[in-house]
């Protein structure tokens, strides 16, 4: 579980994150959504320690990350996996070497054991026969899967995904979303996803935080988002006519079910 208390981050005169508090629970996919420039990426970078917050606290299972010594922070970071927007795979290493890297750095396993573990996670992300390929030789979707494999190879307790669907076609996006959701449940990880993708919001949003101009505007689940009264959230989520139609259909469906339920059908 990650607790965020009154987080604030300022760049020069600009307040990018203003007094944001939230709780990211274990075993759930926690989504941070918002328009470009709303502070999502800065928020996530504060959570993983790539930016230092100016005020507030971030607690990983009760341990205050913001006041940790470097060594403690290093130890905690070994429990964090992160999938980057551009996958951030090491160009000069093969898929196998990329996934093996955290094992090489932080474990004392022999090569055979490491290889076994690498093959297990690559199987888990449905990526076979790509071990010897370089990142430049595989597709965007495969890169994301390698990124997920590398992020989970040390069995982390926390998984962060920065725009995991960017640059992917809708079908591959669904596969990646499903995969992240499954591994979250399987390993009981606290997963935080930064996304613009409305499919992800509807499909895997166990817990959603909507950010608007650096502040938390709304918080809830994908089931609650349809009924949200927040105009800013509705303008953002249901921006197109198509999505508005989907929202109306969903509401009608939900009302129909409620009426049927009352009638005992």
């Amino acid at each position: 579980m990650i607790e965020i208390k009154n987080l604030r981050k300022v760049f020069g005169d600009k307040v990018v994150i203003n007094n944001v508090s939230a709780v990211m629970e274990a075993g759930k996919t926690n989504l941070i959504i918002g328009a470009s420039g709303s502070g999502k990426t800065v928020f996530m970078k504060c959570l993983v320690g790539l930016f230092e917050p100016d005020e507030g606290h971030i607690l990983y299972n009760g341990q205050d990350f913001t006041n940790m010594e470097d060594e403690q922070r290093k130890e905690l970071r070994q429990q964090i996996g992160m999938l980057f927007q551009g996958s951030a795979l090491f160009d000069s290493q093969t898929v196998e070497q990329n996934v093996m890297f955290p094992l090489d750095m932080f474990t004392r396993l022999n090569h055979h054991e490491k290889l076994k573990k690498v093959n297990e996670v690559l199987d888990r992300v449905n990526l076979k026969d790509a071990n010897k390929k370089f990142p430049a030789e595989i597709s965007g979707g495969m890169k994301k899967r390698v990124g997920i494999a590398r992020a989970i190879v040390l069995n982390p307790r926390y998984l962060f995904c920065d725009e995991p669907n960017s640059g992917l076609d809708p079908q591959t996006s669904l596969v990646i979303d499903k995969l992240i959701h499954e591994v979250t449940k399987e390993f009981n990880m606290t997963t935080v996803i930064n996304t613009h993708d409305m499919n992800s919001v509807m499909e895997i949003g166990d817990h959603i935080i909507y950010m608007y101009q650096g502040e938390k505007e709304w918080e809830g689940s994908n089931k609650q988002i349809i009924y949200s009264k927040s105009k800013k959230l509705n303008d953002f989520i249901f921006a197109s006519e198509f999505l508005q139609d989907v929202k109306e259909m969903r509401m009608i469906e939900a009302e129909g079910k409620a009426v049927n339920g009352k009638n005992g059908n």
Partner: protein
Amino acid sequence: MTVFNHFGRYLLMIKGMFTKPENWRMYWKELMKQCQDIGIGSLGIVVIVALFIGAVSTLQTAYQLVSNLIPKSTIAQIVRDTVILEFAPTITCIVLAGVVGSKIASELGNMRVSEQIDALEIMGINTKAYLIMPKILASFLMIPVLVIIAGVLGIWGGRLAGILSGILSPEQFDEGLLSGFLPFNVSFALYKAYTFAFIISSIPAYFGYFVKGGALEIGKASTTAVVTSCIMILFADYILAALLL
């Protein structure tokens, strides 16, 4: 950013490299990789530059020494000292600033822009120690070796050019080569090599590590790194000559 900001951040980067490695074996592997990239990867250009610089030194020295009162072996003496004191360390390192410096800056710049450095940081790895320290250590190990190779080949190239052009005989060249030799000159060349090795590796590492933006900025950082390294090499060359000679 002012020069002082850059210098301060550069010093902090150097300070940040000194932490206990997360895994000695991985750091050793990275050091060996860098030794290969910097040493073996630059050997070809160093050999070519050294041979030609030695050869041209012999021809130009002979061209300027027109007096019959000066023995031909003096040409070899001048070539030897020029190559050892200046050409082998300084010219080789200026060439290496281009070859190695641009590679270091663009490699780190690309890693920064594509978030590979962030990925390492999040894994709990000190990226300054893991990515920059091995490059500086590898430069310390390999650049003096390259300078020695350049010195030997420069003199050999000078000898070959002198013989092939008929300026002086092998015996005359060897006589001049051995007369009035000061071993300190070799030490001085090595002092220079170590100083330049630090400049060639740390300055491009700084510009690459702190790149912001995209491909265009990586190119700019690479150019700035090479230009700054060359200027710093010439500046350090003067300071060392003024202090030690």
